[in-house]
Every structure is written in structure tokens, then in C-alpha cells.
């Protein structure tokens, strides 16, 4: 099938502002939007710049705004995107992060927020002889938030983040949740302190764009609400 693509382009060496490039490519209905972008880059315009690594929804590097909604280009079928966009697939870089070139954004502000929540196991007890054991229930408690692949689709779909880049953002809260509710971790107090700050969890207005955008289907708003409750009650139930 013929696929029409409208791609937001920006070359820092030539352009002062982004512009729209229009391309027509031949694709199978079950090809992904990423395949169509590859076609443009490999056969039409080699200067088209985008990030992708695994191309199978695992690495999270090809998050972009497709038809006005953040998604992974490797997880959206051309057929669905064409139907949704009424014959045109619109592709833009993630909103709210500086655009370096075409669809590539500077992820640094995103990762700066990620680092703020201390996203690693904190446990000062001497390591046990074997592993730190956990019951299946204890593991289940934070199972949902272990799925995050840090693609930034959620944070850049959030109007609170568009309004202020200081907002720590859904992804960082998901990462914090993953450790706060881990029975082996001892850093919850410090993480909850960070998340209770001015630009922490209270900036979440429960808009749900993050949940809709998450390619891993994480219920992010629920995780944020659980962190809010933990701050309020001091309990990690």
C-alpha cells in the first residue's frame, strides 16, 4: 500500500525552525511505522535522523509522537496509523525535550530527573551469603513498575511537564516506585523526600496521557497515586 508520511524535520546547521517533510513510500499494511521511516532514510532522504536500536519494543529508543500521540515507532502498524491519520502518518519528535535533529531529542533533562530519584537498590546491610530473598507477594507489589524501559513517552506526553521541565515526570516516579515498594530496599525515605518537593509527585494532575502513551502498559497514574499515599501516610503498604 502507498503510505504518506508527514515528518517534522529540523537540521540545526540549516534551519532556524522545524518544517514538515512529506514523503510517499510503498509499504505492507503490517509493516511498522519504523519500517516506513527506514524506507525514507534508506531510499529517499538519507539525512532523516532518528533513534532506534532493537526495533522490537524492548530498548525504547524510538519513542516519538505518531499521529499526535507518543508511541514507539516499532510498535505501531502502518495500517493502523494510516486509518487513524486518515491517510497520512504524522511523525514528530517527543515534545518538551530539545530537538537535536529531526526526530532525535536531547534526553538529558529526562535522565537528570531520573537520577534524582536514586534509581538503584539501596541497602546498607551486609550482603547475605546468597541472594536477598523476597516472597512472591513482595515481588508482586512493584511488578508493574519494573517494566519501564525509559523511553520517555510518558514524561513527554504530560502537560505538567510541558508547563515546567523541572517537574520530575511520570517516568522518574515510576522508577522511584519500583524501589520504594521493594522489600529489599532501604532508601524509601530519601526518595519520598525528593518526590515530596515542589516539582515532585504533587504536579501530577491525573491527566492519564502517560498511561495512554506507555508502550509497556504500565499503570503509571496508579503508581504515582501510591507514592502520594505513601508520602501522606508514611506507610509502604
Amino acid at each position, binding site marked *: 500500500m502507498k503510505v504518506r508520511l508527514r515528518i517534522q524535520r*529540523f537540521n*540545526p*546547521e540549516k*534551519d532556524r*525552525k*522545524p518544517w514538515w517533510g512529506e514523503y510517499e513510500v510503498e509499504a505492507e499494511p503490517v509493516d511498522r511505522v519504523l519500517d516506513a521511516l527506514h524506507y525514507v532514510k534508506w531510499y529517499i532522504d538519507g539525512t532523516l535522523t532518528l533513534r532506534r536500536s532493537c526495533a522490537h519494543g524492548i530498548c525504547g529508543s524510538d519513542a516519538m*509522537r505518531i*499521529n*499526535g*500521540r507518543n508511541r514507539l515507532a516499532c510498535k505501531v502498524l502502518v495500517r493502523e496509523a494510516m486509518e487513524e491519520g486518515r491517510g497520512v502518518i504524522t511523525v514528530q519528535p517527543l*515534545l*518538551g*525535550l*530539545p*530537538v*537535536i535533529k529531526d526526530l532525535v531529542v*536531547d534526553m*538529558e533533562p529526562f*535522565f*537528570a530527573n531520573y537520577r534524582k530519584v536514586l534509581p538503584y537498590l539501596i541497602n546498607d546491610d551486609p550482603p547475605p551469603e546468597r541472594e536477598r530473598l523476597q516472597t512472591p507477594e513482595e515481588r508482586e507489589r512493584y511488578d508493574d513498575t519494573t517494566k519501564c524501559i525509559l523511553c520517555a513517552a510518558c514524561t513527554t*506526553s504530560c*502537560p505538567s*511537564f*510541558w*508547563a*515546567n*521541565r523541572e517537574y520530575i515526570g511520570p517516568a522518574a516516579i515510576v522508577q522511584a516506585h519500583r524501589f520504594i515498594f521493594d522489600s529489599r530496599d532501604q532508601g524509601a525515605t530519601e526518595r519520598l523526600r525528593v518526590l515530596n518537593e515542589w516539582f515532585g509527585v504533587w504536579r501530577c*494532575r*491525573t*491527566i*492519564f*496521557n502517560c*498511561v*495512554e502513551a506507555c508502550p509497556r502498559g504500565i*499503570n503509571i*497514574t*496508579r503508581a504515582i*497515586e*501510591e507514592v*502520594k*499515599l505513601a508520602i501522606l501516610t508514611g506507610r509502604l503498604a
Partner: protein
Amino acid sequence: MADPKKNPQKERQGVWRARGDFWAPSAGLGLVLREIPRYRGRVHQWAWVANRIAGLGTLLFLTIHILDTSLVYFAPDLYNHTLSLYRHPLFGIGEIILVGMVLWHGLNGLRIAASDFRPHLWAPHHQARMILGTFAIFLALYIPAAVIMGNIVLQKSILGR
């Protein structure tokens, strides 16, 4: 010069900024206003947008109301004149809109408050249903109120009865 090893990220950002070789729309209210209609959020996003508009509208009314009531003390004549202005049909219609905004803001706020202590309710499908339910209650309360108020505006301000 700062040691890049100490804070490589900051150093790198500094370089980016200095060369200005990226494009970044400035974050803020402008970006939100521009992108909200373009981003294809679902009913949850629109419930929030309506909540914000209703909240700001109510705040605007409260501000005007406090200012005009304070005129009783500072300038009684001007206060009477202001009250006569309020009898204009446009203000009558404004009142009908105001009631809608207060109702939506209140009901939607109750929905959020009711969910706040039950995290399991924060699933998109639950909330979508709750938003639709809130909207149904809103319509059930607002339509009769608007009809009664509209009738009064029509009778008094427009037909002069």
C-alpha cells in the same frame, strides 16, 4: 574551567546552550495551550482541561465579586450602579455559565478526591467510566438549573416582566 569529570552532564548542557544548536520550544503555559488541542489525549485529558477552565472561570468570578462587594464600603453609589449593570441579560447568561463551571469543578473534584485514597481506582478504564458518570450527574443537575435560570433571565431581563 569546570572539570568535566565532576559534572559531565552540566558541562555538556552548557556546550549545547552556548552553541544554540538545537530547537526547543520554551516550556510554559504557551506550550500547554498550543499542544493540548494537538495531543490526542483521551477523555481523562479533556476532563482535566474542563476542570481547569471551570476553575479559572470561577476564580475570575470570585475576584470580580470580591471587588464589586468591596465597593459597598468604598463607593456606595458606584456599588448601586454596578448592581444595575448586573441586571443586563449578558450577566444573566454569564451566571448560567458560572453555575455550570462551579458544578463541573465541584463534581470532578469529588471524583478525584474519592479516588485519591483508593489507588486501585486509578486505572484508565475505571476513571473513564467515573468521568462519564460525573458528566451524567453534571448534566442531570445542570440542565434543570440552566432551564430555570434561563427562564428567569428571559422573563426579567429580556421581556421585562
